Protein backbone atom coordinates (compact mmCIF):
# COMPACT_ATOMS: atom_id res chain seq x y z
CA UNK A 1 0.00 0.00 0.00
CA UNK A 2 1.10 3.56 -0.64
CA UNK A 3 2.11 5.54 2.44
CA UNK A 4 2.09 9.26 1.92
CA UNK A 5 0.33 10.48 -1.17
CA UNK A 6 0.30 14.17 -1.95
CA UNK A 7 -2.20 16.19 -3.86
CA UNK A 8 -2.21 17.99 -6.09
CA UNK A 9 0.59 16.41 -8.13
CA UNK A 10 1.34 19.81 -9.61
CA UNK A 11 0.41 23.33 -8.56
CA UNK A 12 1.08 26.63 -10.32
CA UNK A 13 0.29 29.90 -8.58
CA UNK A 14 1.12 33.58 -8.83
CA UNK A 15 3.89 35.00 -6.68
CA UNK A 16 2.43 36.38 -3.47
CA UNK A 17 -0.44 33.87 -3.34
CA UNK A 18 -0.65 31.07 -0.77
CA UNK A 19 0.09 27.47 -1.74
CA UNK A 20 -1.56 24.53 -0.03
CA UNK A 21 -0.42 20.95 -0.48
CA UNK A 22 -2.05 17.92 1.07
CA UNK A 23 -0.74 14.54 2.13
CA UNK A 24 -2.65 11.40 3.05
CA UNK A 25 -1.24 8.27 4.60
CA UNK A 26 -2.50 4.82 5.56
CA UNK A 27 -0.81 3.49 8.69
CA UNK A 28 -0.31 4.92 12.16
CA UNK A 29 2.62 7.27 12.45
CA UNK A 30 5.04 8.70 15.01
CA UNK A 31 5.61 11.87 13.07
CA UNK A 32 5.17 13.43 9.68
CA UNK A 33 7.76 15.57 7.97
CA UNK A 34 7.80 17.83 4.94
CA UNK A 35 10.80 18.14 2.65
CA UNK A 36 11.60 20.34 -0.33
CA UNK A 37 13.60 19.27 -3.36
CA UNK A 38 14.83 21.71 -5.95
CA UNK A 39 15.19 20.17 -9.39
CA UNK A 40 18.01 17.64 -9.46
CA UNK A 41 19.12 18.50 -5.94
CA UNK A 42 18.96 16.96 -2.48
CA UNK A 43 16.12 16.93 0.01
CA UNK A 44 15.87 19.74 2.51
CA UNK A 45 13.95 19.24 5.74
CA UNK A 46 11.29 21.90 6.28
CA UNK A 47 9.21 20.97 9.30
CA UNK A 48 8.29 18.01 11.50
CA UNK A 49 4.98 17.49 13.28
CA UNK A 50 4.51 14.77 15.85
CA UNK A 51 1.45 12.55 16.04
CA UNK A 52 0.22 14.32 19.19
CA UNK A 53 0.45 17.77 17.58
CA UNK A 54 -2.24 19.36 15.42
CA UNK A 55 -0.55 22.43 14.01
CA UNK A 56 2.93 23.83 13.69
CA UNK A 57 4.41 27.01 12.25
CA UNK A 58 7.84 27.87 10.94
CA UNK A 59 8.25 31.24 9.23
CA UNK A 60 5.94 31.24 6.20
CA UNK A 61 5.14 27.55 6.65
CA UNK A 62 2.13 26.16 8.46
CA UNK A 63 1.57 22.44 8.83
CA UNK A 64 -1.54 20.74 10.14
CA UNK A 65 -2.03 17.11 11.05
CA UNK A 66 -5.32 15.27 11.42
CA UNK A 67 -4.57 11.76 12.65
CA UNK A 68 -8.25 10.77 12.55
CA UNK A 69 -8.30 11.45 8.81
CA UNK A 70 -4.67 10.39 8.35
CA UNK A 71 -3.89 13.59 6.52
CA UNK A 72 -1.64 16.61 6.69
CA UNK A 73 -1.43 19.90 4.86
CA UNK A 74 1.43 22.26 4.17
CA UNK A 75 0.61 25.91 3.63
CA UNK A 76 3.20 28.30 2.24
CA UNK A 77 2.05 31.89 2.66
CA UNK A 78 3.07 34.82 0.46
CA UNK A 79 4.84 32.57 -2.03
CA UNK A 80 8.06 33.65 -3.73
CA UNK A 81 9.74 32.53 -6.95
CA UNK A 82 12.37 30.75 -4.83
CA UNK A 83 9.65 28.47 -3.43
CA UNK A 84 9.45 26.74 -6.82
CA UNK A 85 10.37 23.12 -6.03
CA UNK A 86 8.89 19.71 -5.34
CA UNK A 87 7.47 19.18 -1.88
CA UNK A 88 7.27 15.76 -0.24
CA UNK A 89 5.61 14.56 2.89
CA UNK A 90 7.35 11.73 4.70
CA UNK A 91 5.87 9.63 7.46
CA UNK A 92 7.61 7.69 10.16
CA UNK A 93 5.42 4.62 10.65
CA UNK A 94 4.67 3.55 14.19
CA UNK A 95 6.06 0.11 13.41
CA UNK A 96 9.44 1.41 12.29
CA UNK A 97 12.54 2.09 14.35
CA UNK A 98 13.39 5.19 12.42
CA UNK A 99 12.85 4.97 8.66
CA UNK A 100 10.63 7.49 6.93
CA UNK A 101 8.56 6.82 3.84
CA UNK A 102 8.12 9.50 1.21
CA UNK A 103 5.03 10.37 -0.75
CA UNK A 104 5.03 11.04 -4.45
CA UNK A 105 5.34 14.81 -4.07
CA UNK A 106 3.76 18.00 -5.32
CA UNK A 107 5.57 20.06 -7.97
CA UNK A 108 5.02 23.71 -7.07
CA UNK A 109 5.65 26.44 -9.63
CA UNK A 110 5.51 30.09 -8.66
CA UNK A 111 4.81 32.46 -11.55
CA UNK A 112 6.50 35.87 -11.24
Amino acid sequence: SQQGEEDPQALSIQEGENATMNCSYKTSINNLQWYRQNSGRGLVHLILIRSNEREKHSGRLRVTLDTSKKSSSLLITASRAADTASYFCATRPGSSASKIIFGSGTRLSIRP
Partner: protein
Amino acid sequence: EPEVTQTPSHQVTQMGQEVILRCVPISNHLYFYWYRQILGQKVEFLVSFYNNEISEKSEIFDDQFSVERPDGSNFTLKIRSTKLEDSAMYFCASSSGTDSYTFGSGTRLTVV
Protein backbone atom coordinates in the same frame (compact mmCIF):
# COMPACT_ATOMS: atom_id res chain seq x y z
CA GLU B 1 25.47 23.95 9.81
CA PRO B 2 26.52 20.27 9.78
CA GLU B 3 26.20 18.55 6.42
CA VAL B 4 26.01 15.07 5.01
CA THR B 5 28.58 14.76 2.25
CA GLN B 6 28.23 12.36 -0.67
CA THR B 7 30.81 11.43 -3.28
CA PRO B 8 30.95 11.25 -6.19
CA SER B 9 28.20 13.60 -7.34
CA HIS B 10 27.89 11.67 -10.60
CA GLN B 11 29.02 8.15 -11.46
CA VAL B 12 28.76 6.46 -14.83
CA THR B 13 29.36 2.72 -14.89
CA GLN B 14 29.06 -0.18 -17.27
CA MET B 15 26.32 -2.71 -16.66
CA GLY B 16 27.62 -5.57 -14.55
CA GLN B 17 30.28 -3.48 -12.82
CA GLU B 18 30.49 -2.90 -9.10
CA VAL B 19 30.03 0.60 -7.73
CA ILE B 20 30.59 2.05 -4.29
CA LEU B 21 28.79 5.20 -3.27
CA ARG B 22 30.28 7.08 -0.35
CA CYS B 23 28.77 9.20 2.36
CA VAL B 24 30.05 11.03 5.41
CA PRO B 25 27.14 11.41 7.85
CA ILE B 26 26.90 14.04 10.55
CA SER B 27 29.38 13.05 13.23
CA ASN B 28 27.09 12.76 16.26
CA HIS B 29 24.24 11.03 14.42
CA LEU B 30 23.58 7.39 15.15
CA TYR B 31 21.25 6.33 12.33
CA PHE B 32 22.25 6.18 8.70
CA TYR B 33 20.15 5.60 5.62
CA TRP B 34 20.23 5.14 1.88
CA TYR B 35 17.36 6.17 -0.34
CA ARG B 36 17.09 6.26 -4.10
CA GLN B 37 15.03 8.27 -6.55
CA ILE B 38 14.58 7.06 -10.10
CA LEU B 39 14.15 10.04 -12.42
CA GLY B 40 10.67 11.51 -12.08
CA GLN B 41 9.62 9.06 -9.39
CA LYS B 42 9.27 9.09 -5.63
CA VAL B 43 12.07 8.79 -3.12
CA GLU B 44 12.33 5.12 -2.06
CA PHE B 45 13.77 3.73 1.17
CA LEU B 46 16.57 1.23 0.72
CA VAL B 47 18.16 0.56 4.09
CA SER B 48 18.75 1.89 7.58
CA PHE B 49 21.84 1.21 9.66
CA TYR B 50 22.31 1.51 13.39
CA ASN B 51 24.90 0.22 15.82
CA ASN B 52 26.99 -1.24 12.99
CA GLU B 53 24.24 -3.36 11.53
CA ILE B 54 21.27 -3.12 9.23
CA SER B 55 18.14 -2.28 11.21
CA GLU B 56 15.64 -2.24 8.35
CA LYS B 57 15.73 -2.83 4.63
CA SER B 58 13.27 -2.70 1.78
CA GLU B 59 12.48 -5.25 -0.91
CA ILE B 60 14.67 -3.23 -3.27
CA PHE B 61 17.71 -3.92 -1.09
CA ASP B 62 18.45 -7.41 -2.37
CA ASP B 63 21.67 -9.44 -2.36
CA GLN B 64 23.22 -7.11 -4.93
CA PHE B 65 23.31 -4.32 -2.35
CA SER B 66 25.41 -4.01 0.78
CA VAL B 67 26.27 -1.26 3.23
CA GLU B 68 29.29 -0.73 5.40
CA ARG B 69 30.66 1.74 7.90
CA PRO B 70 34.33 0.87 7.43
CA ASP B 71 36.05 3.44 9.59
CA GLY B 72 33.61 5.17 11.92
CA SER B 73 33.07 8.15 9.65
CA ASN B 74 32.25 6.88 6.16
CA PHE B 75 29.07 5.03 5.26
CA THR B 76 29.08 3.24 1.93
CA LEU B 77 26.55 1.61 -0.38
CA LYS B 78 27.89 -1.07 -2.71
CA ILE B 79 26.05 -2.42 -5.71
CA ARG B 80 27.82 -5.61 -6.78
CA SER B 81 26.66 -6.04 -10.37
CA THR B 82 24.86 -2.99 -11.66
CA LYS B 83 21.81 -3.23 -13.89
CA LEU B 84 20.33 -0.59 -16.15
CA GLU B 85 17.43 -0.19 -13.73
CA ASP B 86 19.83 0.79 -10.94
CA SER B 87 20.24 4.16 -12.66
CA ALA B 88 18.92 6.67 -10.16
CA MET B 89 19.82 9.38 -7.71
CA TYR B 90 21.07 7.83 -4.47
CA PHE B 91 20.70 9.83 -1.29
CA CYS B 92 22.43 9.22 1.99
CA ALA B 93 20.91 10.59 5.19
CA SER B 94 21.63 10.55 8.88
CA SER B 95 19.61 11.30 11.98
CA SER B 96 19.87 11.24 15.74
CA GLY B 97 16.93 8.83 15.86
CA THR B 98 13.38 10.03 16.01
CA ASP B 99 13.65 13.45 14.50
CA SER B 100 14.32 14.82 11.07
CA TYR B 101 16.89 13.53 8.68
CA THR B 102 19.73 15.44 7.12
CA PHE B 103 20.19 14.40 3.51
CA GLY B 104 23.23 14.65 1.33
CA SER B 105 22.97 16.20 -2.10
CA GLY B 106 23.02 12.80 -3.75
CA THR B 107 24.99 10.72 -6.23
CA ARG B 108 23.56 10.40 -9.69
CA LEU B 109 24.31 6.86 -10.87
CA THR B 110 24.06 6.18 -14.58
CA VAL B 111 24.40 2.57 -15.72
CA VAL B 112 25.14 2.17 -19.43
